[in-house]
């Protein structure tokens, strides 16, 4: 008999203690703050950079820059949290409740309200104008530099011609520099 009823104490304890299981759904399940349920987005904070879409191992995310939308196929998502970790502006978070059940598979699309869209459009216009100005400034700077180089080259060619008249050396180098200066100006 020594080898029998080894589990008796524990089994008796179980009879008089509360169940180890949860009577779901009558008793709701308690989640931990860390529980990975589903990804949610603060779309107003999203900068549409597409980092989440590129890094997603299941390809369940899509960023539509033209329409300012972010969409997720929750039935493909494996809650790996890669997007949440890689988001540069931290607009993605992991909610602890699971995806709600549904009768048909669908893609959740998150977009901006008209007011938010107007703000984003204004921001985009301002950004585009700023970029255009910066481009123009860079172009003007490049032209000025090319002009300066051209002037320098002509001066050097003049010096080269003078020295050629004296001894004949340096003629080829002088004309070469001048043609390079012309080419640079054309490119500019």
């Amino acid at each position, binding site marked *: 008999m020594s*080898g*029998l009823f080894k*589990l008796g104490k524990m089994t008796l304890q179980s009879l008089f203690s509360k169940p180890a299981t949860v009577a779901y759904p009558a008793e709701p399940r308690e989640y931990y703050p860390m529980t990975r349920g589903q990804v949610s987005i603060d779309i107003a904070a999203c900068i549409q950079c597409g980092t989440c879409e590129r890094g997603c191992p299941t390809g369940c995310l899509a960023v539509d820059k033209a329409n300012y939308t972010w969409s997720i196929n929750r039935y493909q998502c494996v809650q790996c949290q890669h997007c949440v970790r890689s988001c540069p502006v931290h607009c993605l978070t992991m909610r602890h409740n699971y995806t709600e059940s549904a009768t048909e598979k669908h893609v959740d699309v998150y977009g901006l309200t008209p007011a938010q869209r107007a703000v984003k459009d204004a921001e985009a216009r301002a950004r585009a104008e700023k970029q255009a100005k910066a481009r123009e400034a860079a172009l003007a700077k490049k032209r000025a530099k090319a002009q300066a180089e051209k002037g320098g080259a002509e001066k050097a060619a003049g010096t080269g011609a003078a020295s050629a008249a004296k001894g004949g050396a340096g003629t080829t180098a002088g004309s070469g520099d001048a043609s390079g200066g012309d080419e640079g100006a054309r490119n500019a």
Partner: protein
Amino acid sequence: MAKKTLVPFGPQHPVLPEPVHLDLVLEDETVVQAVPQVGYVHRGLENLVDKRDFQQFTYIAERICGICSFGHSMGYSQAVENLMGIEVPERAEYLRVIFHEMSRMHSHLLWLGLAADAFGFESLFMHSWRLRERLLDIFERTTGGRVILNFCIPGGVVHDIENTELEAIVSTLRGMREDYDQIAATFLDDASVRSRLSGVGYLSKADARTYGCVGPMARASGWDVDVRNNGLGAYSALADFKPVTSQDGDCYARCQVRVEEVRQSIDIITELASKIPDGETLVKIKGNPAEGAESLTRIEQPRGEAIYYIKGNGTKFLERCRVRTPTSTNIPGMCATLGGSDLADVPNIVLTIDPCISCSER
């Protein structure tokens, strides 16, 4: 000489959590040969290195198997780190080993429950799984997932675990110990368990070496093969580590090794939690694996040694990823063990290698 009969075992069988098929050639009630057939759950995961970059593949490696998921992510991450010459922060190494040992505990408790279910001890099965639930709660509380943790990535671990949380984990494990001792005593001393497992499915040490067995299956035959013995990662910080072995080589010995390994894991976690250094837990990986670079890593999964081989091609995609899992290594040994056994003992013998078919088919 009795007439030979062919009895199919599986792919669907009450004792098998996953599908594997065995053709059992019987003479009367005795098995004379067992021919395995695998391939029911092959998913072609290794081939996905063509379509997913080496960082994304971590999540795929973790999903090779649901039970040893953390081990797979750890083995793959170590392979990537070796390939790219990345040094992982020391605290991350400790956290990895702590979670790997907890994952071993939950795997062994799952197996103990399945074993109890296989030999018809339902209450023991439920108590084992009730205890395992506490570990799953720890996983969910600390990483957000119960089974797939997504905690280990190349470069370290995704977030730090506070020292106070580690103390809470150690305290939970200490609390489990009293309950676990009762369960362990039942597995090791109960007369009905002994009658089902003792002397069944004998595998000698020589045969274990011949068939290349790994993990608890080899250690139960007296061969102390254990990758943790090499002292890689935070295992080197342990004051003393000796693999759990048994000399009997039967189903009871395999059960005994796993029962003791759970206790050993609690000791390892307690020791490492007291020694864990402060510091960073993640280094960012820059660049891609070099063309032609190769890396081979071994880790000790709950079921035995797993090998990860990866090769780079200069892009963000790997050229090759190969995983050798313990179950595929133990299947030849299991078939050898089945020869000469009774038909009624086949379920117990199959179960004592702790078959993980998802691992072996990938």
